[in-house]
Structure formats: structure tokens, C-alpha cells
């Protein structure tokens, strides 16, 4: 990243592995030809790099909005959008035009400035979080030493913007949605970070590119040495995945929106492009957290099968993020929304204890040599509490069969 443009020959620029860096290098090279000052060149290079990320993920957002509707439709034996363009491919464009041309209504009782600020603030952390992910072997747009810390610090801003949206709307349903969002996101942030801590303990670093690089190689020649394929990593990965659904406000944890209960939650008083910005923030946040999950547990840009190292590493990242996003869609198609008390109970009585257990498991796994013996020790440590906790949760804490006083006698 620090190599001067002149040091890299043009053939290297167009190598498949280096392709994502092409815009940045081109801009830097062209500017250096004009003799611009060094500071300007590096700023322009950073802007080009950020532009690449933005462009890729905004188009991915547009595509995902279509794919999501298609997948949901297929899960319900419907066809999905197929009118705008070939297989509905122009649907995102049509949606965008619709959103842009709609009237932007600001309620009388709204805090005008905050009401405007909230949709901007919800996109911002998602974009910033996307910056620190290692997309390929050589490409991290913002290679921070404490990328994981930065990610969580920035990610916490989402709660704030959701609450600002609810508060500034000056209306009841948004306020209810914001209250739900705060309680939900704060609760799920705990197991989210706890489950990521195991990875930090084993890797010994907060740098995301380092975490991804450490998961190289294969066990027995075919099982990738990803963190997911360790006892603590499996549990932590699952917990991380569940928490990421809750953090991204997606079904079945979409209580802050809760269409059937509180109209659209914190977005109720928004219309037009501000409304679209909320969705953009939500989907970009989804990409970011899925990307983080991949980096922590699924080996980042590492190929899943040996002998495929010639495929550019960023292709593997894209493939993995597609699979994880598809899982999100599948889950959305399958499960109904939780009730708020069930949601909170699940977070505090099931997720957090399990996430805490992954920490000693990761430590034991590390200090017993990361081999077959470590499996023997750590697997029961996690499996037994999981089964006990899950069943106790089902028996005692989940509401039993409802008795109707007059119908059941």
C-alpha cells in the first residue's frame, strides 16, 4: 500500500489479484505525472480507494434489494419482481427513481435538524466499517492495526442514529421503535463483541488483515484452518451470526421496524430519499457485519478448497459474503418475528452465557496445543451447557402453552 506508483509496473496493476487497487493506483499515478504535492496525491488515492468500496457496495445494495425480493418470493412459491427489465433487473433503478421523486415530508413536531441528520448518520458508520475489512490478500482500504476495535466503535453509532431518528420524528411509533432498537441493539452488542473476543484471544491481534491471514492452510489437507472449524469458533461463529442479525435489525429480530406492530418503527415519519437512506444504511451495515463475520470465522479471503490459490483472493471474499447474505435471506424467509421479552430473554439468558463460555474454551484450546486433545476438552465444555441452556430456556423461560380460561376450562 505504501509503495509508490512508479514502483509497481503496469502489468502488475492489471493482475487479477491487484484489480481492486487499480482505481487508487491510476489516480495516484496520473496525479504524480502532473507533479502535484505528495499530500494531495495520497488524499486523492484514499478517495479513489473509498470510492471503489462505495461503488461496489452501493451496486451490491441495489442488486441485493432485488435478490432479496426474489429469494423471499421463491421461498413462498411466488415469482417475485419480473416486470422492470429482464428478470426484473431494472427494479432497483425503478425503486430508486420512485424514492427520489417522492415528496419529502417532515412532520411539524419533528426536530428538523436531527430529523435530517439521522438518515445520514445511519449510512455513515456502515460505510466507515466497510473500510477496515480485508477484501483480499493485498487489499484493505484502511489497514488499521486495531481494525476490529474501530469496527465495533463505529458500529455502535448505528444505535445512536436509530435513536435520533425515533426521537427527532416527534411521534409515538418512531419513539417506540427507537426504544426497542436501543434495548435490542445494546443487548445484542454484548454477545456480539464477546463472541469476537475469542478470535482476538487466539489470534493475538486486533488487526483484521492479520486475523484473516492467520487462518491459512488446511487440516488433513482438505479442512480449511478457519476459526469456524474449532469447537469454540463454531459456537462463537453461530452466536456472532445470530447477533449480527439482531444488530442489522433483520427478521426475525426486526422489532425496531415491526411493520405489523408499530408501522415502520423509527422510519415511520420518513419518506422519499431519506427513507431509502435508512435501507441503504441497513444493507451496507449487513454487508459490513457479514464481512466481519467472514474475516473472523470463515477465513476472510482464504480459499475454501486447496489448490484454488490462483483465483484472486477478493473473489473468495465476495463468494463467502454472498453465501452469508443468502443465509440472512433464507432466515428472513423462514422465521416469524420474536416478541420483545423473548428477544431480551434470549440475549441475556442464552446468548451472553454461551458467549462467555467461548472465552475459556478458546483459552483452553490455545493452551492445550490446538489439536485432538483440545477438541476433547473444549467440545463438552460448550456442548453440554448449550444443550442444558437450550432446553431449560425452552422449558422454564419460554412461555408455555397458553390456556384459554373459557375454552379450555
Amino acid at each position, binding site marked *: 500500500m505504501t509503495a509508490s506508483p512508479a514502483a509497481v509496473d503496469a502489468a502488475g496493476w492489471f493482475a487479477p489479484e491487484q484489480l481492486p487497487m487499480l482505481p487508487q493506483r491510476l489516480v495516484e499515478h496520473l496525479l504524480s505525472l502532473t507533479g502535484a504535492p505528495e499530500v494531495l496525491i495520497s488524499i486523492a488515492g484514499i478517495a479513489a480507494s473509498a470510492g471503489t468500496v462505495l461503488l461496489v457496495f452501493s451496486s451490491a445494495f441495489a442488486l441485493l434489494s432485488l435478490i432479496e425480493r426474489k*429469494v423471499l418470493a421463491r421461498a413462498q412459491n411466488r415469482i417475485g419482481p419480473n416486470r422492470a427489465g429482464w428478470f426484473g433487473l431494472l427494479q432497483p433503478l425503478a425503486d430508486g427513481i420512485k424514492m427520489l421523486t417522492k415528496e419529502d415530508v417532515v412532520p411539524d413536531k419533528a426536530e428538523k435538524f436531527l430529523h435530517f441528520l439521522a438518515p445520514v448518520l445511519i449510512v455513515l458508520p456502515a460505510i466507515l466499517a466497510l473500510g477496515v475489512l480485508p477484501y483480499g490478500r493485498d487489499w484493505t482500504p484502511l489497514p488499521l492495526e486495531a481494525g476490529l476495535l474501530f469496527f465495533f466503535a463505529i458500529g455502535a453509532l448505528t444505535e445512536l442514529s436509530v435513536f435520533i431518528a425515533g426521537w427527532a420524528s416527534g411521534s409515538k411509533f418512531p419513539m417506540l421503535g427507537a426504544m426497542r432498537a436501543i434495548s435490542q441493539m445494546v443487548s445484542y452488542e454484548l454477545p456480539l463483541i464477546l463472541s469476537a473476543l475469542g478470535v482476538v484471544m487466539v489470534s493475538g491481534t486486533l488487526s483484521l488483515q492479520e486475523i484473516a491471514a492467520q487462518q491459512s492452510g488446511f487440516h488433513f489437507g482438505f479442512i480449511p484452518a478457519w476459526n469456524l472449524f474449532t469447537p469454540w469458533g463454531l459456537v462463537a461463529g453461530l452466536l456472532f451470526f445470530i447477533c449480527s442479525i439482531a444488530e442489522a435489525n433483520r427478521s426475525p429480530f426486526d422489532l425496531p421496524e415491526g411493520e405489523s406492530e408499530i408501522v415502520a418503527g423509527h422510519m415511520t415519519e420518513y419518506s422519499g430519499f431519506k427513507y431509502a437512506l435508512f435501507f441503504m444504511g441497513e444493507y451496507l451495515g449487513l454487508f459490513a457485519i457479514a464481512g466481519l463475520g467472514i474475516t473472523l470465522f470463515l477465513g476472510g479471503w482464504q480459499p475454501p478448497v486447496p489448490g484454488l490459490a490462483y483465483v484472486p483472493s477478493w473473489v473468495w471474499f465476495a463468494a463467502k459474503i454472498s453465501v452469508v447474505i443468502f443465509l440472512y435471506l433464507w432466515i428472513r*424467509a*423462514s422465521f416469524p418475528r420474536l416478541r420483545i421479552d423473548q428477544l431480551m430473554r434470549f440475549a441475556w439468558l442464552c446468548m451472553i452465557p454461551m458467549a462467555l463460555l467461548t472465552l475459556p474454551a478458546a483459552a483452553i484450546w490455545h493452551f492445550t496445543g490446538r489439536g485432538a486433545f483440545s477438541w476433547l476438552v473444549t467440545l463438552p465444555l460448550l456442548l453440554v451447557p448449550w444443550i442444558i441452556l437450550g432446553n431449560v430456556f425452552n422449558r422454564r423461560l419460554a412461555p408455555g402453552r397458553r390456556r384459554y380460561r373459557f375454552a379450555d376450562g
Partner: protein
Amino acid sequence: MNDATSSPKPPGKRWSLPGAGLLKGMAVTGRNLVGSFFTKERMTTVQYPEQRAPISPNFRNFPFLVHDGDDPDAGLRCVACSICEKECPPQCIYIVLERDAEGKSLKRPKIFDIDVSVCMNCGICAEVCPFDAIYMDGEYELSTGDRFEGLLFHKERLAKSADYHMRLRPKEATQVMERRKAEEEKKAAAAAAKAAKAKAVKDADANPTASANPKPEGGEA
């Protein structure tokens, strides 16, 4: 576990692998997700403007006028008796009888208007009509940009052939056709009998020696 066979416990009271139920649920949606690409029977969508779901024979909305033959104006069964106009609860029918120069009824409507924005699709007009002239239609694509003139249907718009009625509601139309045919035959037979009778009378008049007929000629049936 031991008494699982004797008394099935409710799902919450059995030991199980937590999360197994979620996987079962995802398998269901997953089957639909994949199956919808292979099994056409799964898909219930009707691609509306290109395809149409068949309408039920009992589906009815606004009325139409039946005409026999090809000419919508001359073949109209309606005789402008105005029974439907009087029976119509929201009074959406307006009929003017056509008369010739002397003011004699021509037994057909000069104006027959139905305001479908007022019509409530009750079907009383079709029930009361003694001439099988008005029936309920199955057409549902009636949206228009002009909510006054566009929703006021005139005679020309309302007239539809007996074949259309047959296609729309085969059972009902067949019954109507059979009844009408029987009536026509009866009428024809009556007319033939009358003609034969008249002929006989004429013959008797021409040849008084054959039989003496006391009945005077020209009696109306």
C-alpha cells in the same frame, strides 16, 4: 425418554438439541426455494395482463343486454318494458321506449343506459326480466379515466351477443336457450294450429256443404 411412547409430551417438555426446530423450519422454506424452480405446480402466480385466472360461472358484476343474431341493435331481446328500471334498487337504469311517428310503441329501447358507478351488482334486473334480455356480465376490467361519461354505459356498449352469454355462463345460457326454443316452438305450433284452423274455416266458408261452422270469423285467440 422412557414414557415417550406411552404419553407424548408437549414439545417444550422433551429434551432435544436446541436449534433443531429452526433447521426443520429452514428445510421447509428451503424446499420451496429450490422446488419452485423445478415444480410448476408449486407456483400459484397468474401473470395477470398476459394470463387470466378463469372466472367462476357464478361470478357476476354489471349487467349486459343480450341480442340474438349479429346485429346488436335489431336483435336486442329487450322490449323496453322498464321492469328492471323500476326494480333496480339504486336506480341506475334509464330506459326510453322507442316509438314510431304516430307514437306507437316499437317494443324496443331508444335509450338504455346503466350507470355502473351506481350499480351495486345485485342482479335483480336479470332476475325480474321476463324476456331473458338482461344478464349479469363477467367483465372486470372497467377502469377508465373519465369517471362520469366513462362509467355510463349506453345501449351500444351494453349489447352483447347470445353467443357471448353462452361462453360466459354455459349452464345458464343453455337453460335460457332451451326455454326460449321451447316457447318459440310452442308459439310456432300455436300459430300453425291457428293457421290450420283459419284455413279450415276458410275452406268451410268456401265449401259450405262440407260442414256448417257456427263460429264467426276473426276471433282473437
